[in-house]
């Protein structure tokens, strides 16, 4: 049964149709990747699903309930939480305090929240940096902090927006392992990603977005052989090379 059902969603900015009639579903426990060239509309789609932007048309249903018109915090409270591609740490708060904000979504008291936050920091490998201020973190740690804060809210669905971007191969491998662990704990994941190694290693199914439209969908192996996808990434003329 699908946990998230997006149907006919469109979003334009003036004359630019960033997302056009996108339809897909995310099943409970699935790990779905959303790929596509730069400017394909992936992040816009995330903004719409997570409540930061209202769709021009279409419906988004989460666990049977329509999300259109709900604000991001409402959606987070229902169990679906997103991260940001451009990391947004709370700069003047420590790493622990950053994660605490997420944990307070689940519990009212600071002491319980600290317990949750510490567990999450241990899981995400940030425990040693708990006392460091948000702005002093390196990029890989910022990416982890994005993930840690989102995890602290106790999500059923994680929307990850390019958490691998800018990481070196070792860091990427570690983050792939971490995401696998989180998925293994029963969290459903929708992943926007450019790093194909991560996409191939993690995803069970891939959606490809190009110029705001869904052009392909399928298992990783079939999607990378799809001529339309190759054309979208490399331009016309390359699609025949593979055959």
């Amino acid at each position, binding site marked *: 049964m699908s946990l998230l059902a997006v149907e006919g969603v469109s979003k334009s900015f003036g004359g630019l149709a960033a997302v056009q009639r996108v339809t897909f579903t995310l099943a409970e426990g699935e790990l779905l990747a959303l790929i596509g060239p730069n400017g394909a509309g992936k992040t816009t789609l995330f903004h719409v699903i997570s409540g930061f932007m209202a769709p021009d048309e279409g419906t988004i249903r989460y666990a049977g309930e329509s999300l259109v018109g709900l*604000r991001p*915090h409402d959606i*987070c409270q229902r169990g679906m939480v997103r991260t940001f591609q451009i990391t947004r740490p*709370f700069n003047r708060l420590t790493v622990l*305090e950053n994660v*605490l904000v997420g944990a307070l*979504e689940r519990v009212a008291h600071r002491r319980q929240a600290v317990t949750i936050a510490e567990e999450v920091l241990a899981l995400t490998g940030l425990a040693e940096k708990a006392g460091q201020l948000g702005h002093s973190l390196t990029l890989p740690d910022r990416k982890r902090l994005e993930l840690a804060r989102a995890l602290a*809210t106790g999500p059923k669905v994680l929307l990850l927006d390019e958490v691998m971007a800018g990481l070196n191969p070792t860091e990427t491998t570690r983050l792939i392992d971490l995401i696998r662990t989180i998925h293994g704990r029963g969290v459903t994941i929708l992943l926007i990603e450019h790093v194909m190694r991560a996409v191939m290693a993690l995803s069970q199914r891939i959606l490809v977005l190009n110029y705001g439209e869904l052009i392909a969908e399928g298992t990783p192996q079939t999607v990378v052989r799809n001529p339309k996808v190759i054309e979208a990434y490399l331009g016309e003329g390359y699609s025949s090379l593979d055959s």
Partner: protein
Amino acid sequence: MSRRLGVGLGVGALLVWLPFTVSSVWQNLLITTFYFAYLGQAWNILGGYAGQLSLGHAAFFAIGAYTSVVLHTHFGISPWLGMFAGALLAAAVSQGIGYLGFRFGLRGFYFILLTLAAAEILRLIALHLPLLGGYTGLFINFTPNPWQFQFKGKIWYYFIALGFLAVASAVVWLIERSKFGAYLVAIREDEDAAEALGVDTFRYKMLAYAVSAGLTALGGTFYAYYQFYLQPNTVLSMHHSVDIMIRPIVGGSGTILGPILGSFLLELLGEFSRSYFAEGAAGLSVVIYGVLLIVVVLFLPRGVYPTLLGWLRRATGRRA
């Protein structure tokens, strides 16, 4: 922990002993210091913790002052009760301004302008409303009666101002340790990120505004019964709004000690420039005051208290 208790008791004893030993000029200086530290603490909840800069807190101050004075002079209601009516009214008005600002996503400069405009509108209303005395304002006849919030001698005002400051600081202390406080700080640091993590940013900003406005209004009542005079162009001026916000900013906004430290510094600075530079040329003291203020803001952009704390931590080898 016991050292903290010792320091607390020492400071407490000093504050109780102090007013009995200093001259009336210094009593007045201390009262003003506590009173502005109180207002700064109230402003701090919205401006310092939630990061929503208000340049119109004079509005809530005036609502508090006028409400208690009108209730007192026209209906004989004690200012001790009237001040809470004023606080409720100020909190209600803050919700109106907050709704306009936060519902339509005004941030930064636009929110500042909205708060400024609200105070200006209120000033114009006060100038033209006979009930509030119009341009000449309202005078309060002095009748030394504690139940009417009127006292002979400054000692009483000293302890009331100190009590106000203690209460506001306790409120801020509690906020700092609560979920509410953690959410306010998250909103200040990055509103969208907070929203994504389940923080109802609209609701918490509204709540911070209400608490901040209500406390500010209580300070207005104190002012009315300390000065015995309310005039729209004084209490509702932008200058007054700046006076309210400048102390927490100088001392360190978003910290509990910032407004207190800032108030002491600016009061001493003002007194110093008045007594040393007042004789040469009229207005020179204000210029000196302004220059010193710029120096503080320029070199200690986060405020005096966080900077001192940073130095202290570096000196003792702890993390900054």
